[in-house]
């Protein structure tokens, strides 16, 4: 499952990640974190609600992972995306890629991040410090 309802614990994810025991010289970790943007004067984002079309989102992320593995010489890939309410400072999105060499790892991780943001049916609603909400 790529979508998770609970808070993402990076240490736990890394503990279970397959670093390749010697065959991979590179592991790259990307974390997307909810930012407290100032939307208008004195009004900040306090949390984000992530809505998802879950069965389709799972399928789309699986396709992106498969495509990345076909396109780039990489080894292990881990992708997680939060759904529901995520507070400022919390991780909303994680991608980890291990590969023999760093260059293909960087290319692959950029590809995965861009494709997830472009294709996967997930939507964010910002919850503002004044109580208003805005679909992004």
């Amino acid at each position: 499952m790529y979508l998770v309802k609970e808070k993402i614990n990076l240490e736990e994810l890394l503990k279970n990640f397959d670093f390749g025991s010697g065959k991979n010289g590179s592991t790259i970790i990307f974390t997307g974190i909810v930012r407290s943007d100032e939307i208008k004067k004195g009004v900040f984002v306090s949390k984000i609600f992530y809505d998802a079309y879950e069965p389709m989102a799972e399928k789309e992320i699986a396709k992106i992972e498969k495509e990345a593995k076909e396109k780039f010489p990489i080894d292990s890939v881990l992708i997680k995306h939060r759904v529901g309410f995520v507070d400022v400072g919390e991780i909303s999105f994680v991608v980890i890629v291990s590969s023999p060499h760093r260059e293909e790892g960087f290319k692959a991780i950029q590809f995965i991040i861009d494709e997830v943001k472009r294709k996967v049916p997930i939507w964010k609603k910002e919850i503002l410090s004044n109580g208003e909400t805005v679909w992004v």
Partner: protein
Amino acid sequence: MMENKKIRVLFFGRLRDIVGTNEIVTSDIKDIEDLKKYLFEKFPKLKGEIFSIALNYEIIHTNENLKDNDEVALIPPVSGG
């Protein structure tokens, strides 16, 4: 067998607020074009909205016939990450 054809229609993101519900179930809709016409009549505010259509979890770009138990989703521009 048109009579009992059941179609589930799901709304996401800002479209949920616009139509005021997460999903509806409808019947006797021939194809996607028919469904759109039905939805625009039922929810006139949908007309100005940008969205793609997913049929059984795949985005479709052409009109398709609908069959019993199909799931259609209205997908506004995505914003994950």
